[in-house]
């Protein structure tokens, strides 16, 4: 099945959700990104791995409109775009779940779910809590995530539950391209499995294309279709996960460490 789709993509021009060509980003004397070429097919889950300082967070922030690239061109759905703000990226359907999750601990699950896109009543613009609760409950059921109560303050939930809420919020705000910034960082095996299941579910539904930024290679191989390795501000490796392996990636990174040691 996956094989068939890949062949299909190889013959036809594959529909691309996102493409970045020659993205360069400098901060003063520091060149964080030195010509990143990256593409994301529709419905695909792309694993992006790289060492600390390789430029992962700069790349995410550039794709989401937080930074403006100094050089290079981005395309969304094949159309050239130059993103000026996070709001503009969001309007194009690019959503990010940052590591800090952008959740408000003091607020309830459903208020977090609708933060900044709250439903209100008419004619007086009071919060329509009833409708927000109903929808939140439905979203959470759809995603198959176990949250004790949507009235609970988010601060009382576990890391995995919080992550799931942040992902659900992005997905249901009509994200077409979802960037997950190390969603499994500092998470136990059980919680991590819940998030990987969630990504798998989204992949099966095929509505969103996902870039999963990860530290742990085995997570990438569990859910991703393709893996990109970011080294020294450029993509140095791009293969379908079916043709790659944890060993090969580990060897690449170890080689880099070896090189760093001999040159220093």
């Amino acid at each position, binding site marked *: 099945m996956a094989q068939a789709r890949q062949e299909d993509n190889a013959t036809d021009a594959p529909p691309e959700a996102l493409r970045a060509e020659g993205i360069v980003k400098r901060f003063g004397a520091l060149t964080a990104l030195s010509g990143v070429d990256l593409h994301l097919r529709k419905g695909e889950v792309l694993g992006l791995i790289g060492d600390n300082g390789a430029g992962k967070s700069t790349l995410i922030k550039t794709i989401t409109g937080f930074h403006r690239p100094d050089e290079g061109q981005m395309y969304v759905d094949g159309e050239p775009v130059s993103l000026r703000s996070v709001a503009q990226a969001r309007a194009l359907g690019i959503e990010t779940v940052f590591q*800090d999750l*952008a959740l408000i601990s003091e*607020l309830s699950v459903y208020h977090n779910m609708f933060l900044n896109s709250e439903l209100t009543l008419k004619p007086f613009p009071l919060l329509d809590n009833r409708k927000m609760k109903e929808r939140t409950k439905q979203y959470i059921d759809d995603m198959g995530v176990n949250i004790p109560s949507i009235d609970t303050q988010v601060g009382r939930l576990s890391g995995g539950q919080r992550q799931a809420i942040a992902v659900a919020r992005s997905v249901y705000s009509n994200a077409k391209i979802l960037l997950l910034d190390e969603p499994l960082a500092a998470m136990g095996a059980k919680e991590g499995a819940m998030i990987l299941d969630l990504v798998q579910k989204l992949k099966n539904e095929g509505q969103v294309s996902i870039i999963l930024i990860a530290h742990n290679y085995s997570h990438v191989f569990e859910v991703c279709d393709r893996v990109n390795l970011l080294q020294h501000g450029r993509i140095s490796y791009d293969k379908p996960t079916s043709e790659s392996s944890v060993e090969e990636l580990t060897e690449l990174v170890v080689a880099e460490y070896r090189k760093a040691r001999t040159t220093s």
Partner: protein
Amino acid sequence: MAKQAVGGDVGASESARSSPGLGSRVAELLLRQREASIFFVAIALAVYFQSSNSAFLSSGNIRSLSEFTYATAIISGGLVMLLICGEIDLSVGQAYGFAPIAMYLADQTLVLPVAVIVGLLATAVIGLINGVATVYLRVPSFIATLGMFFFLGGVNVILTDGFPKTAPSGSFLTEILGGADWSGIAWCLLIVLLMHILLNRTRWGLHTFATGGNPVGASEAGVKTAKIKVGNFMLCSALGGFAGVLDALRIGSIDPLAGGPNIMFFAVSAAVIGGTALAGGTGTIIGAFLGTVVLSIMQNGFSLQGVSAYTFNVILGIAILTAMTLNVYVGSLRRSGRV
């Protein structure tokens, strides 16, 4: 074997949870509903003072209680919005003094309704300056509004040449705006109700909580935290000004030295006693109102008993420290998920 032990454990905690005594249920209510605890304190104090002096709940004394309460309660409502944002306005007591003066000066050339609006707009501009200094110039609000506190204190005296002015009176408008008996507390209750709705049932209120609870996360989610903060500075200052206008028209005199630090510190105390944390992210308008009621009852009750103002200050200090300690303790209980 192991499974049995686990099962037994669950059963034990289950039964402990399902059969709480009345005492622990009341304790839980007090911890969950911040307003409830301060409400019971107010009732207990009223019962105590009434039993020690039957004049306490006479209609005359209730009116003077209401006059003690309304201006401070209006100001503390505005402060709650700012405290939830994680900011403070130390100059709000001077805005209380400034609005009637601006109104008085405008009244020399304009009609009174316009003059009242000028007074309120002038204080909103003060709030705008406080907000811009805090949000865009990144001066901590404690410092920015401390500067505004001294600045306005001086301006108030300069604009009046240091002499109290006779407030406009005798019109329908002056009667409504503090002149008539009970009009002040009526405004206060209306404002508390509207502010409570604003804080708990509107996007503005939700974004105020978000701004204080997680500033970075809120802005990542697209909440315009700068706008929220500046708006709440303006609201707080304008409410301070409105309280000042009500008091000036009730008393019939515009005093260049009115307000200042005293009413501001009372309002902050009321907010804190009512369950608003200075760290931001939490707070209630009704709690602040009840906090003001408690302070007024104590002040009024102790003076009926002939207790001196110094003793009152000692008790107020203890009350604030106790309330804050409880706040911190209850907060940590909440975070650990035990309540």
